[in-house]
């Protein structure tokens, strides 16, 4: 055999292309930029170590932490109960109707918690809708119970999403096997369905826990009036109303405790997670005509309907009425209704703020999705990538006000009064939302990319043809989530804005500080409508993803 060429080959290791290295480099830089505030937080706490330790040991500081643990654990449990129940109910509904029920179950996720709590007050507190119509009020709304219920309502959709995805993928045959081999319906559920749901539930627990531990809007609206402090409201108080030099590092320390607590929960859960129950059954969507369980299904549907009415629809109606009532305190009667607030609210300054928020949120969504996609490639190939993807998730549990402070400390000198600083804070806080992209990436078979390469596509073309079609749906979903979160974010932008970079949050807080409940309600209504539009986009994405999944079977 005569050898034509000896070494005209470009030296390249497969999978370590220049593009891959560039991505890696960009990721490391970005991680640095985003994680710097976190680092600063740690440094601040360490610098003031002695006073932090002293103050952290005081009952006054410990009580809110204990409250946070109580509220978070209870609301996570309740959220799971609601999420599991609604997932089971929606899953039992024939496919044609599922979309609308699915929307209903997701709805609370798309209403900002702050607006949600506010609207509950308009609906169920003294002077609210129920007071007018039924002369019935719910004083427990103020205090731990109200906080727990509202947190659960707002985080249950997360449990729901994760569980319903798992349920849809459940292979019916192991369940049938249980029935044939003597298990009654509930026994089959307990011994086969439940163990398959458990890993998903554990995965959901970490997310819901962090979300609820870090929530500020709900304990602010419902906890403080009853003197019920959680860690986030205490942090808020330390930052806003106490002027001792210690207060600053105490706030930082409390946030670190929150973040570390969530990290511990996450790690503990992962430990739990590993093991055999992690294996979910292979996907096999197989509709089957079943005569069983129709009564149960009917009851479930009614329950879900009532739940949606009570939890979202009625509060939303109350919110709309508040925004339409000429003056706060007047009965929502026809003669007292006006569109003036809506017209006023949509006037220039709020309108500008809305445009800013939309642009910032869209950009954040784009960048985080892009980062998530590159991160997915990296974490698919290396352990360090996986660790980074996990770390990025941490700031999600830190209250926005602290991220805002840390971002100011890190970048305030150079980026003061620019959109860039708000944008960086969004990146830091919401990066973790891109994790599902990495998770989905691991499930994509290599063969489609390889087929692309083999048939002449360069690496990027092969990516477009072999990976993107499967990852696109998840990326879209993550993008919408980031978008929504960025829009209804309040505390970070209120700390970081300057005239010219106002966001929606400034308008809301302005109205709130000014005691202008009608404007608050109006913005709440507008936000909620905006979110529902986003939700429709998201589920449209979900539909197309389903189609893709179908195509890829």
């Amino acid at each position, binding site marked *: 055999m005569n050898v034509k060429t000896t070494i005209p080959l470009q030296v390249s290791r497969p999978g370590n292309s220049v593009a891959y290295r560039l991505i890696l480099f960009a990721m490391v830089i970005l991680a640095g930029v985003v994680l710097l505030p976190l680092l600063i937080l740690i440094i601040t706490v360490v610098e003031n170590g002695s006073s932090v330790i002293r103050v952290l040991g005081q009952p006054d500081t410990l009580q809110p932490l204990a409250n946070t643990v109580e509220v978070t654990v209870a609301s996570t449990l309740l959220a799971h109960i609601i999420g599991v129940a609604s997932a089971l109910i929606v899953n039992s509904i024939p496919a044609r109707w599922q979309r609308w029920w699915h929307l209903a179950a997701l709805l609370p996720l798309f209403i900002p918690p702050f607006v949600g709590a506010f609207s509950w007050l308009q609906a169920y507190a003294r002077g609210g809708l129920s007071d007018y119509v039924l002369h019935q009020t719910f004083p427990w709304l103020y205090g731990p119970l109200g906080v727990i219920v509202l947190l659960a309502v707002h985080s249950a959709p997360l449990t729901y999403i994760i569980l319903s995805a798992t349920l849809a993928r459940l292979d019916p045959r192991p369940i049938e096997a249980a*029935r044939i081999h*003597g298990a009654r319906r509930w026994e089959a559920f307990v011994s086969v369905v439940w163990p*398959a749901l458990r890993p998903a539930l554990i995965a959901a627990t970490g997310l819901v826990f962090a979300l609820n531990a870090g929530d500020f809007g709900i304990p602010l609206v419902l906890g403080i009036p009853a003197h019920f402090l959680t860690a986030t409201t205490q942090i808020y108080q330390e930052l806003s109303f106490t002027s001792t030099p210690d207060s600053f590092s105490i706030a930082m320390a409390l946030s670190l405790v929150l973040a570390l607590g969530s990290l511990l929960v996450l790690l503990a859960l992962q430990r739990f997670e590993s093991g055999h129950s992690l294996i979910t059954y*292979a996907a096999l969507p197989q509709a089957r005509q079943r005569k069983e369980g129709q009564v149960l299904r009917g009851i479930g549907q009614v329950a879900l309907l009532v739940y949606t009415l009570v939890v979202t629809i009625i509060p939303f109606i109350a919110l709309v009425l508040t925004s339409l009532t000429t003056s706060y305190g007047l009965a929502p009667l026809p003669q007292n209704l006006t569109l003036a607030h809506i017209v006023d609210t949509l006037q220039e300054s709020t309108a500008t703020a809305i445009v800013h928020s939309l642009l910032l949120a869209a950009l954040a969504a784009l960048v985080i999705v892009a980062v998530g996609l590159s991160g997915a490639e990296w974490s698919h190939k290396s352990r360090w990538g996986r660790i980074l993807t996990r770390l990025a998730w941490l700031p999600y549990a830190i209250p926005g006000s602290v991220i805002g402070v840390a971002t100011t400390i890190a970048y305030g000198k150079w980026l003061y009064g620019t959109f860039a600083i708000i944008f960086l804070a969004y990146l830091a806080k919401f990066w973790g939302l891109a994790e599902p992209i990495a998770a989905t990436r691991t499930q994509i078979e290599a063969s489609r990319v390889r087929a692309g390469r083999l048939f002449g596509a360069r690496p990027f073309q092969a990516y477009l043809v072999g990976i993107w079609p499967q990852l696109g749906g998840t990326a879209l979903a993550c993008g919408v989530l980031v978008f929504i979160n960025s829009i209804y974010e309040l505390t970070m932008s209120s700390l970081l804005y300057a005239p010219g970079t106002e966001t929606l949050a400034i308008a809301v807080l302005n109205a709130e500080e000014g005691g202008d409940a009608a404007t608050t309600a109006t913005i709440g209504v507008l936000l909620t409508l905006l979110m529902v539009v986003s939700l429709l986009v998201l589920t449209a994405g979900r539909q197309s993803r389903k189609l893709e999944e179908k195509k890829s079977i």
Partner: protein
Amino acid sequence: MKYVAKQHARAEITQAEAILAVKDLSVTLDQQPVLHEITFELYPGELLAILGASGSGKTTLLNTIAGFLAPEKGSIYLAGELVSQPGAVQAPEKRHLGMVFQSYALWPHMSVLENVAFPLRRQGMSKAISQKQASTMLARLDLEAYATRYPSELSGGQQQRVGLARALAAQPRLFLFDEPTANLDSALKASFAQEIRRQQQESQVAALYVTHDVREAFAVADRVMILQSGHIEQLGRPMDIYECPATQEIAGLCGLYTLLPGRLEANLDAGNAEVTIEEQRYTVKLLNKSCQPGSDVVFMLRPEWGEIITGNPPARAGIAATIARIEYQGSQTEYDLETTIGKIYYRALGRPLAQVGQEVQWYPRCLYAYAPTIQEPA
């Protein structure tokens, strides 16, 4: 054009009481009729294989017998007891059945032992006793070593053995097998099917065995049911199905075949007959006697029912053929023969005995005759 023989008479089975009786069963799914008037009986110790193309309703039939689907019409009796009829279906867990699934359908979060003990637990046994019995069953299938493993730690074949152990442990009155070997690779397939057959014969429990694989159906079954778009097309002993397929489709389902037009001259004794093919007369073994001597018929023949003779001049006159293709398969070799009356398949054990392009003489030894009832393709 399709040639169809008269429906073959069903083989006689001892008239013990049927363990399963399916009468006139029709099932409709999503307004789509899937099974039509299925009627058959299954007797203790018998294994009935159900063969059919994808979508022919095999799984639907098993699911209806298991009690997951309600019939649209007809009824199902288990050991004489009415368990399914339109609108009244006994729950699956009350039927005392055992089932082995194509996808194994083991419970991934339970150890092998727990998987096998599960049906026993559900029958009300204590944990200790059920695990003891499950261990015995595992030992019987050479699985003791894997008792504490989880399904994910086993190979496909081992998982399927566990699935079998689970079905056996329950000591059911009827086994349902839904393509139990479809996910196993070919080396394992045959031995696993044999294992199933042995275990089923030992326990003398009746079984329905759904498969795509004709060889496997023939190898394990007492009787074979051919299902086509929800109808029973033929039901009989493996040999009946292979040698006397009711329709051309069934013939094709069971392997290669050749159709040759000819004439049945006379039936001789000992199953032989005088036939004419291409002006040439042969004495062959004729597998059915239902055609009228002296009439034109269409002969169906399997590749191994003929012979080729090489050598020049040939020792015996037959149909002149040219070898168009040779496929060596190890234990046997298959040939495509080109003749003036079309392509004839031929098969012999061992190495190729001729070369592609070589001229040979072919003559028949055994035939099956279809009366020329011509049926238009569906």
